[in-house]
């Protein structure tokens, strides 16, 4: 018979061995602070006038799921293919990865999502059923408004003066930046949602009155189609045209042929698009002359670089005084040194020094000194609508003084970007819907405003995102990317030669897009990496309600050490205030 072991050597008694759990020790009682899981805004999203949820979309793209990535873009904007090509991408300027190993190629990735994803936009609500809304103008603002109104259930009638939809996207942006089929692809996602599309309809005042009667609301997004003219000696000479008119001709199948020397007057995006287009159409020399000094030139940096690459010469700080003539045609322009300029009712009034002059020869002159809003017959006899100049609106709701009439895009503010126009279209659509259905919502636009606005998330209004602080932005200092491997951005490939009007920038391959999307820090967005769980020394971080991608501390066991917060790459987990 075996003698029982003395207790002092009985393996079961001699050491505290836990086979199940040590949960008897409520170590959480020791804590003074608790980690807090709060998703926040990324700088790119705050910078995006369209309010795109870039980190979430890129996380899905990094997993190779471009349908999901596209779906996330389509929640806020109907034009990922357009923005993925022409946006001035303020998102990239603010990207936190810039401080690490180079900004994420956000614009190129939005294009990839549009090209590689095949998914239909989803409706937000059907509450707008039976509340028809008319949208006048199918530029980025009009398309955005029509799209979001339709997603909120409204039967939308879209009216366009041109034969084709797209407004400025169709008429003014050169095809080498935005090819026709890219616009068509975005339109193909929007149009199935729109009840009625009428092109070639130039809306006048009496039609507007009818629309206001027949529809519950009307959104006015006619853009700023009229080019400002120079009223100076020689300004009506043949060979001088507005840059917008020139760009419009350049979009036609029968492109104009430009020979000799070209002078472009103006320093905005339109001026540079015209200058680069002229060069591509055969101009031997192209010079851009603008009032501003180089650092104040309003054109986007991307276009400036493109213009320099195209061999275009710049003259900064000059204003045109008069044009010279030879054989009843323009032969050049005389410029005076610009000493200062001021804005008066939206017009730039320069002070030019006639004693310091510069003369440039020119076979063609393109004038791009800004586009003016000109409602003309549309405003005829309607109080509160000016025939010339911007339409006045409430800055938040974009409602005009006329009940039921809202306005956005360049008609309200110029110069504006495509992304800003998309943003105002969305905002107007939202307020039209909210105004008609105020009673059914207990939320306000405040709940969807991103940081201090004006960007807002229509998705956030309709789908309450828990554990998300839409007022706070994650800065680089809030991140902990030091465990990540440095990886420079995927190079943007340009078509060799840069001649003609074939699209210049190439798309990312699928592999490149996956890799570039994988570079995103996903600032403020939890991707379920679960480093918080992994690094917690007390096994105290768990999915909240079993839901992956929302994590919280265990009340009983979290000691508040903050390891989870330190381990979080993305600034989602943070240590809360002292208790």
């Amino acid at each position, binding site marked *: 018979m075996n003698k029982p072991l*003395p*207790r*002092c*050597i009985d*393996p079961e*008694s*001699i*050491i*505290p*061995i*836990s*086979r199940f759990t*040590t949960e008897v*020790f409520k*170590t959480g009682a020791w804590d003074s602070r608790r980690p807090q899981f709060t998703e926040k805004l990324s700088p790119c999203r705050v910078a995006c006038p369209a309010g795109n949820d870039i980190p979430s979309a890129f996380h899905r793209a990094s997993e190779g799921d471009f349908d999901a990535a596209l779906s996330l873009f389509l929640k806020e904007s109907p034009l990922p293919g357009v923005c993925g090509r022409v946006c001035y991408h303020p998102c990239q300027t603010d990207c936190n990865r810039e401080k690490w190993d180079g900004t994420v190629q956000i614009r190129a990735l939005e294009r990839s999502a549009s090209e590689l994803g095949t998914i239909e936009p989803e409706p937000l609500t059907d509450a707008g059923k039976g509340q028809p809304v008319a949208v006048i103008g199918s530029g980025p603002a009009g398309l955005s408004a029509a799209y979001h109104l339709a997603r909120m259930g409204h039967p939308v009638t879209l009216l366009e003066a041109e034969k084709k939809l797209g407004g400025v996207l169709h008429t003014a942006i050169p095809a080498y930046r935005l090819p026709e089929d890219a616009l068509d692809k975005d339109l193909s996602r929007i149009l199935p949602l729109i009840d009625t599309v009428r092109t070639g309809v130039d809306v006048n005042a009496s039609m507007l009155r009818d629309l206001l009667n027949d529809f519950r609301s009307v959104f006015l997004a006619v853009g700023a189609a009229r080019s400002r003219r120079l009223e100076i000696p020689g300004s009506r000479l043949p060979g001088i045209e507005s840059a917008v008119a020139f760009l419009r001709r350049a979009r036609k199948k029968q492109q104009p042929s430009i020979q000799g020397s070209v002078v472009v007057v103006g320093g905005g995006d339109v001026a540079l698009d015209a200058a680069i287009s002229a060069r591509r159409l055969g101009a031997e020399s192209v010079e851009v002359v603008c009032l501003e000094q180089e650092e104040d030139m309003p054109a986007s940096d991307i276009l400036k670089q493109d213009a320099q690459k195209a061999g275009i010469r710049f003259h900064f700080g000059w204003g045109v005084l008069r044009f010279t003539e030879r054989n009843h045609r323009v032969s050049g322009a005389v410029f005076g040194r610009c000493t200062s300029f001021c804005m008066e009712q939206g017009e730039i009034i320069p002070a030019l020094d006639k004693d310091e002059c510069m003369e440039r020869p020119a076979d063609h002159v393109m004038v791009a000194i800004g586009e003016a809003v000109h409602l003309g017959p549309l405003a005829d006899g309607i109080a509160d609508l000016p025939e010339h100049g911007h339409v006045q609106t409430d800055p938040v709701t974009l409602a005009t003084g006329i009940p039921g009439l809202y306005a956005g895009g360049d008609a309200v503010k110029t110069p504006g970007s495509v992304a800003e126009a998309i943003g105002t279209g969305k905002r107007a659509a939202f307020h039209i819907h909210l105004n008609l259905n105020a009673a059914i919502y207990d939320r306000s636009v405040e709940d969807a405003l991103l940081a201090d606005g004006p960007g807002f998330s229509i998705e956030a209004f309709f789908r309450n995102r828990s554990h998300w602080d839409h007022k706070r932005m994650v800065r680089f200092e809030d991140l902990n990317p030091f465990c990540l491997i440095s990886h420079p951005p995927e190079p943007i490939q340009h078509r060799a030669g840069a001649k003609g009007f074939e699209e210049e920038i190439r798309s990312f391959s699928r592999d490149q897009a996956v890799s570039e999307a994988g570079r995103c820090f996903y600032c403020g967005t939890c991707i379920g990496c679960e480093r918080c769980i992994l690094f917690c020394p007390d096994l105290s971080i768990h999915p909240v309600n079993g839901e992956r991608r929302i994590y919280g501390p265990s009340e009983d066991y979290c000691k508040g050490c903050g390891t989870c917060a330190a381990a979080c790459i993305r600034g989602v987990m943070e240590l809360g205030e002292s208790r």
Partner: protein
Amino acid sequence: MSKFITGNHAVAEAVRLSRPGIVAAYPITPQTPIYEKLSETEASGNLEGIMMRMESEHSAMAACISASLTGARTFTATSSQGLALMHEMLHFAAGARTPVVMACVNRTLALPWAFWSDQTDSLSQRDTGWIQLYVENNQEAADSIFQAFRIAETVMLPCMVVLEANFISHFMEPVDFPEPEQVNRFLPAVSLPRRFDVENPGFVGAVVTQKQYRQFRQLSHEAMGLTLETAEEVDREFEAIFGRGYGLIEAVETENADLVLVTSATITSTARLALKRLRAQGIRVGLLKIRLFRPFPTAAVRSVLDPVATIAVIDRNISLGREGIFCSELKAALSNSPVRKRIQGYLAGIGGTDVDDVLIEKIVQDALNRETFSDGPVWMEED
């Protein structure tokens, strides 16, 4: 089979014959030859277990503890600074009740920097809960390794076999090694509880309450008590098989002695020689060797020393500000003794100086002729 061999290599050979599953160690003078020999043995395919070449002694002990919790037989070896670095893990090993066996080669602790024999390194680990055996020669070093595995694995406590730098570690002596079958009979294949088991996961570092802590300490202390019986039984069994026994202590001619000299480790063998010479001169002097230091064999010591009135203790170590550590321990063990004692502590061989028979005779003469016994130690100067 007899081999002319250093103490370090004798230990390594005994370890090989003991078939540990894991040897985890880090080299340090004067222990390094143990590490090297076991490493070579593994490389030549003659080590049954795995040799883990660790990045520090602290890690070496951590590896031994974890391996032991899985039920493996474990061994490590170190010295001096290495042992000091291991200190934290020594408490863990004892607290986890892991029967890790370690050869500790006594070496001076820095500063000053030196490599000589001095017992203060191992004696500084007195309160870590380890069993400590101090050995006298190369044969006893090897034999104590076999015994240490048996004792440790029976009482579930870690055991240190302590041998002195140079005098054992690097001196060569003939050592008898048993045949593997004999070792297997004395020290069968390991059979330890698998407290770490992937099939039945567990955690041993959990926080305990105040009361639980006290209870676990009490159990460890009881296991130390059981170690006294176990070590005796194991030694008796060893003697029956191999013909060599050492006891917890060894008393030499202590009956009716006017003075008993108390020693440990290598000084004992020299003392045996001095004793013979003194006895030949008619001086009634006895010798007590303390082999087991932890648990302290109080009862065994008292059974020998209770009747003795005059005692001299030689220490190759010092608890600064007190005296030799064996001396203090002895005084404490005898404080309830019925016969009043006069005990004098002598410090000899500190820093690894040679303690020869002449010096030991000098100590005996000093103690016998002394009128007053001092509470502090007498520093003996080498020639």
